[in-house]
């Protein structure tokens, strides 16, 4: 998961620092223009300019290659150092395909279906109108050995196929292209068979060796598992690649002196950097503007129809509406459309840049194009920023830490929600900032963000820093200790110092949601549990997935948080006996709605009886891999937990083959979704 350090990192860093220095002369980046010209840039390499034309002898050959390595992923089922159910299994040839089943030699993600959205700890998306119809839940970025022009991408799915929704490729020109996107209909659950999924790709001439696959779990019955990914295409000659890279370097170099030039307006400055762009655009803009302001009236008069209704003189137009109404209308637009609207006229520009429309910013759906310039532009507009989501952005050095720090220092004073999942630009000094700036943070998810960030964020109530597992841990939170108002803290798969976490827990008495999945290796969970019981009794949801060394003592401590509605103890406690812990938990926390005890092998039959008698409000129950379950206990639970919706009984080896039919029958009768290890059941 280390950030890919490209050879051009040095040049791009210098370009971004120079561009951030001048705020006014800097080309005011137009979001949609950016998207448009990027489209043209990478598709145009062979279109315009004769020097890029490949020689007929350079045809290259057809190459099929498997994944060489994994650069990044958003979540995995297994813990980092393991080779079971983790992202590292995607590397190389398929090991299990065409067999179908739940195998540890594959890549599995953490969630499936919409169960996590139904749980108490579900989060709301910030600026939901930005999301595409099929939102991405998880992704994985992989790289291959050789550059090719892609003709086919095959994904080998060995369990519950049907989660892939998008395939992206990262070209030599440092831009992401979407090679394939799923329609709604593609997502219907397919038959229970392993499949080699190779959708028809966009016809393109781009050259790539890095792919990103996006997944959406909403239609999945159970976990989906990927065995391998294959990239097929024509190779290109090394000479061509070299020339393209040199061209890139030249383009980047020309960025820095440009901002200092100052001649001409922002548009002409931008145009100077784009050597292959035809110059006609500017003339079009000005001539259109002239036409509208001068000649439109005359034109319409000249061409006036017989009926009077077409006269432009009478009637209301949109801009006659009150400002607040227009603001309300525009508030439904996604960010990209908002930028487009701003180009219509001066009035619309004024409305669309009003800070109230930028109170919530979500750049997660725009991760391919999020850059330092975009942040710079948004910083000018977002003076009243309350919620910010920069997850998944900046993966290939597109956003510089300094730019982000500046952004946060300028605009972070009123932040209440901050999500920085998988942000690769976060480094230690960034986290500093968050602690300093965002005292307001109520919800925080952080990926190693510079400490200085947190300093101003005094109002923060949500902080989300998922996937910051670097070594040494970036999260050395002394500034984060300033955050006192946190209600939600998400540290999924993040490395941090135990002391800091404990001091944060002490400081944030209002904490309601805490996610410490995969943190159990470096953190003493028993101490954390003790602190939670002492200082954070308002806790509603707690996720301790794979906290192997949590003991029965820790469980007893957790049971003192009486407001708990969701508790994920998957893979905790190992074989250790639970003692009285589960009984105490169930008695003290009557509001418990979601309880995950995946692979908590110490669960005894008595514990299952307690679940049946005390778990009145249970909606989701995961008992995967627990040996002491017999079908009688299952029946008890089904009868006594009326609100149960999900019951996971996979790998419960004591449930015999012959009982699976019974389970299917009960599933229908009690209207509970029961997951079991029988592959070919009818559910």
């Amino acid at each position, binding site marked *: 998961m280390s950030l*890919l350090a*490209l*050879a051009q990192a040095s040049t791009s860093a210098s370009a971004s620092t120079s561009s951030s220095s001048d705020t006014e002369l800097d080309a005011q980046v137009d979001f949609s223009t950016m998207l448009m010209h990027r489209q043209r840039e990478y598709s145009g390499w062979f279109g315009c300019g004769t020097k890029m034309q490949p020689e007929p002898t350079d045809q290259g*050959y057809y*190459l099929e290659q498997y994944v*060489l390595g994994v650069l990044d992923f958003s979540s995995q089922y*297994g*813990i980092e*150092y*393991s*080779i*079971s*159910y983790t992202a*590292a299994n995607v590397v*190389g040839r398929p090991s299990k395909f065409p067999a179908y089943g*739940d195998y*540890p*030699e594959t890549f599995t993600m953490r969630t499936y279906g919409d169960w996590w959205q139904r749980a108490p700890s579900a989060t709301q998306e910030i600026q939901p109108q930005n999301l595409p119809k099929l939102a991405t839940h998880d992704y994985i970025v992989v*790289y291959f*050995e*050789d*550059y090719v022009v892609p003709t086919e991408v095959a994904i080998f799915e060995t369990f519950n196929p049907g989660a892939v929704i998008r395939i992206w490729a990262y070209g030599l020109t440092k831009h992401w292209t979407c090679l394939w996107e799923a329609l709604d209909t593609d997502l219907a659950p397919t038959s229970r068979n392993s499949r080699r999924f190779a959708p028809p790709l966009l016809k393109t001439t781009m050259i790539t*060796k890095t792919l990103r696959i996006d997944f959406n779990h909403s239609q999945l019955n159970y976990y989906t598992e990927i065995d391998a990914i294959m990239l097929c295409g024509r*190779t*290109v*000659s*090394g*000479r061509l*690649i*070299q020339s393209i890279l040199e061209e890139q370097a030249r383009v980047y170099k020309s960025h820095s002196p440009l901002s200092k030039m100052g001649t001409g307006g922002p548009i002409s400055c931008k145009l100077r950097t784009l050597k292959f762009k035809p110059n006609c655009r500017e003339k079009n803009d000005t001539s259109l503007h002239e036409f509208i302001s001068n000649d439109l009236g005359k034109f319409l008069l000249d061409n006036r129809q017989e009926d009077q209704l077409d006269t432009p003189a009478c009637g209301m137009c949109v801009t006659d509406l009150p400002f607040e109404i227009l603001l309300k209308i525009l508030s439904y637009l996604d960010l990209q459309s908002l930028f487009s609207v701003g180009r219509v006229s001066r009035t619309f520009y004024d409305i669309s840049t009003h800070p109230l429309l930028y109170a919530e910013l979500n750049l997660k759906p725009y991760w391919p194009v999020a850059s330092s310039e975009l942040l710079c532009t948004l910083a000018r507009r977002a003076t009243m920023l309350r919620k910010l989501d920069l997850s998944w952005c900046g993966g290939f050095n597109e956003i510089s830490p300094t730019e982000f720090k500046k952004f946060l220092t300028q605009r972070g004073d009123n932040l209440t929600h901050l999500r920085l999942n998988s942000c690769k630009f976060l480094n230690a000094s960034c986290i500093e900032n968050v602690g300093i700036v965002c005292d307001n943070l109520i919800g925080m998810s952080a990926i190693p963000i510079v400490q200085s960030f947190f300093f101003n964020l005094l109002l923060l109530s949500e902080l989300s820093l998922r996937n910051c597992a670097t070594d040494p841990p970036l999260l050395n939170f002394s500034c984060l200790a300033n955050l006192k108002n946190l209600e939600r803290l998400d540290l999924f798969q993040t490395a941090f110092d135990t002391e800091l976490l404990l001091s944060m827990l002490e400081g944030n008495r209002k904490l309601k949601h805490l996610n410490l999945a995969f943190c159990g290796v470096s953190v003493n969970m028993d101490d954390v549990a003790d602190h939670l019981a002492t200082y954070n009794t308002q806790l509603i949801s707690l996720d301790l997935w794979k906290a*192997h060394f949590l003991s029965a003592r820790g469980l007893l401590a957790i049971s003192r948080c009486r407001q708990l509605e969701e508790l994920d103890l998957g*893979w905790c406690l*190992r*074989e*250790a*006996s639970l003692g009285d812990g589960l009984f105490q938990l169930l008695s003290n926390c009557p509001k418990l709605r979601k309880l995950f005890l995946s*692979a908590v*092998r*110490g*669960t*005894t039959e008595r514990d299952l009886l307690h679940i049946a008698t005390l778990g009145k409000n249970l909606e989701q129950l995961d008992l*995967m*891999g627990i*040996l002491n379950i017999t079908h009688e206990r299952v029946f008890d639970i089904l009868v006594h937990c009326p609100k149960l919706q999900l019951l996971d009984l*996979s*790998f419960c*080896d004591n449930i015999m083959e012959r009982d699976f039919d019974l389970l299917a029958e009960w599933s229908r009768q009690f209207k509970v979704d029961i997951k079991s290890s029988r592959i070919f059941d009818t559910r």
Partner: protein
Amino acid sequence: MHSLHWTSRMISRALRSSFSTLLESATGAGAASKVGEGALKSASPRPHFVSVVCGFAKDNLRHKYKPGKYGEDSWFKASTEQADVMGVADGVGGWRSYGIDPGEFSSFLMRTCERLVQCSHFNPQRPVNLLAYSYCELMEQKKPILGSSTACVLILNRETKTVHTANIGDSGFMVVRQGEVVHKSEEQQHYFNTPFQLSLPPPGHGPNVLSDSPESADTMSFPVEDGDVILIATDGVFDNVPEALLLDVLRDVEGERDSVKLQMTANTLALMARTLSLNSEFLSPFALSARRNNIQARGGKPDDITVVLATVAM
């Protein structure tokens, strides 16, 4: 054998190329060199094992032949750019009375070792780490795997031409050079017939079960020379075949590079062990050590037999 070597070279070549050498690999020469380089490598002398496997399950009728296992025993072989790795594991049979298949644990241990060898964090000088990681992986499986087994892992580090070993329990290895045993593993036992073992007890039975950690393995490291014969086997061989007899067979095959002949020798050894184990009169090493422990025993010990035989070629 050769095809395995070829595939592993392809994989290891792929693993070696790094991102900064994209220009190199992107040139047309890169594609052609895939074939050329492979051929080149086989010509240059590089220390490697020529290895073969043979064995018998104790109960031939019950156990259908499955690759990688002989009854409750299991073995693995793997190869990377830097090292050749071999190992055996012997599942402790006592678990059968608890309804647990003893072969599952040892088989999983060996299969995981095989996969772990190809990982980036594989250290060719620490076979104990390999065992430890493999043991940890057991706990990350959804399917509960219970039982226990002994293990013996051997790694040949090509660069330094040394062999590193780790042994827990009563499986072991023997190195023969110029007609003499130069290295041999020691049997690790708590009591008679109770070897050190890696185990995963059923939940709740933890304190009642003998469980040794991977760190308690015996480790050895020694240099090897061209022509050395290495035998890794489970106790089915060492308990039934006296050392002198083993030595006799092994010294004949020193320096042998033909895997067919090597296979014939391995087959001989396995057959010898099998015949002797079923013989009820013969004073096997097992019977002798039983007598040392005041137990009247005679004859061989029927047990699963696994023989992994390799010669070092440079």
